[in-house]
């Protein structure tokens, strides 16, 4: 890209992609903003004109708003903690030379290929069902009263399901990071008198910090928007209503597009606050 000619050629060739991407992002964003200032009830009169900030005020003052923000944060935070802790451990384990390594690795990655709807249904019906689920049988085997997972422990159950889906992603990224660690560094630390745990703490973990940062950022973006898992398990009941689920309810169940759009704008703001917050904490690892 040195000469003026090659620069303009490059620009020309990038234009379609840029236009497409911008359109892709800008059109929905602008439409959301547009609707958020309108009273728009598709089944009850359609477009009823501009209402200013009324939708925004109604959305935050509704009793469901703050609990949904809290639920969202709990799910995102819980899944992040579980996937990263287990991911680091699994990555270390998978990095050890062992028999059947290829197959084990494929098995570990497998959950990532299962559609969210399917995996949530499998968990709901095969594991967490209070009568026929595997957990219920396990509890009964030990003489305990089976837990009504999705109603009594709805949030932990959801965190568990979503963590199961995202663990492969974290493991995979962390595994490649571990494999790039120079083994001489570990040997040097061993000679310097660091036992295994200290080698993990002082050498492996700092080496992984960049990969962990990436996992946190990417997962946060996707976890803020989880929907299918909630839809097919609790349907938003038992305190599992996240912000995105609340928006869905406003738009589709209450048929109030203006209110839902205002919620969407709040979701964008929340995602950005969270992203900035995360970047601030972990950003120093991305230098």
């Amino acid at each position: 890209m040195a000469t003026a000619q090659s620069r303009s050629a490059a620009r020309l060739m990038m234009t379609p992609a840029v236009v497409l991407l911008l359109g892709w992002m800008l059109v929905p964003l602008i439409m959301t903003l547009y609707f958020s200032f309108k009273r728009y009830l598709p089944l009850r009169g359609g477009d009823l004109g501009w209402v200013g900030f009324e939708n925004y005020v109604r959305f935050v003052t509704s009793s469901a708003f703050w609990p949904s923000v809290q639920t969202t944060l709990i799910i995102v935070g819980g899944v992040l903690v579980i996937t990263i802790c287990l991911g680091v451990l699994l990555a270390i384990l998978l990095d050890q030379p062992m028999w059947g390594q290829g197959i084990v690795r494929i098995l570990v990655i497998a959950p990532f290929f299962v559609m969210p709807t399917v995996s949530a249904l499998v968990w709901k019906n095969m594991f967490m069902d209070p009568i026929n689920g595997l957990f219920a049988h396990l509890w009964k085997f030990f003489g305990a009263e089976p837990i009504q997972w999705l109603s009594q422990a709805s949030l932990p159950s959801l965190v568990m399901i979503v963590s199961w889906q995202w663990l492969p992603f974290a493991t995979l990224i962390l595994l490649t990071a571990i494999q790039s660690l120079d083994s001489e560094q570990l040997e040097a630390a061993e000679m310097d008198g660091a036992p295994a745990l200290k080698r993990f703490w002082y050498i492996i973990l700092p080496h992984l910090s960049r990969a962990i940062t990436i996992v946190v950022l990417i997962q946060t973006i996707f976890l803020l928007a989880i929907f299918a898992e909630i839809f097919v398990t609790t349907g938003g009941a038992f305190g599992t209503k996240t912000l995105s689920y609340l928006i869905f309810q406003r738009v589709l169940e209450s048929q109030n597009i203006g209110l839902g759009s205002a919620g969407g704008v709040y979701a964008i703001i929340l995602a950005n606050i969270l992203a900035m917050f995360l970047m601030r904490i972990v950003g120093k690892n991305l230098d």
Partner: protein
Amino acid sequence: MGRITLDQVTKSFGEVNVIPPLDLTIEDGEFVVFVGPSGCGKSTLLRLIAGLEDVSSGQIRIDGNDATALPPAKRSLAMVFQSYALYPHMTVRKNIAFPMKMAGVPEDEQKRRIESAAKALNLADYLDRRPGQLSGGQRQRVAIGRAIVREPAAFLFDEPLSNLDAALRVGMRMEISELHKKLDTTMIYVTHDQVEAMTMADKIVVLQAGIIEQVGSPLDLYRAPRNRFVAGFIGSPKMNIFEGEEAKKHNAHAIGIRPEHLTASKEGGTWKGTVGVSEHLGSDTFLHVHDTGLDETITVRVGGEFDAHHGDTVFLTPEQDKIHRFGADGLRID
């Protein structure tokens, strides 16, 4: 103290036998260099001593105590790796402090040792930088600093200079030698470069395919190589070794003569040949002489001002008492 004894040590990786039974004693305070071509098992031997690899059989003793089963940290040996193996996320200060931190050395003692190591190695200005911000030579020094502060019984170096440029290598070579004189600690140094071996060692161990070909002081090896391999490996440029008529005249299967023990003249001498390439180094000139009937090329060292060009005829005369004789088995005949 740092007297290291290897007793019938072997090492195999699966089926591959890298070190056949090997005996070696390294005296306290000695500077020992393991030298040999790439892949001959030098690093493996060093790693066995360090404890980073388990021996397949045999015994390693450090100061008379059996260390064969001791973990690396308990052997009180410090190693400098070829890649330096610095911890990239720690500052130079923390890198150097790391082994002391692991050993639980008190803070002010740590500080004292870091200061003195930094002074000795010219690192004082870089203590708060990270390894990524240092040049190759400085990283090398940090790695050495990290080894020094542990006050180990012996230092192990695995080709520490091979990532440095030629000028820096000469400088670091001297620094390491000086460090040895100052600390008076055993040092084991692995290299494939015979110049490093000759200039630094008290004792050279020449290895080939895991077998010790000869152990001795640099000059011993230079004067009396035990076999053709050592003769060809030690000394630069290489010794001229050839078989045939000339060798028979000396009652040997092959004879060797070093380039510096041949004299060249334009008037007359023992062997006649034509100059192929002449390399002028300034102080010396090396002539590669063809068509002598002895070997493809014979290398000879002449004075820097010797005027010879491609195609010139020269006569070579060996110093009779500097001719090395080898038998059909490759061993030296005295």
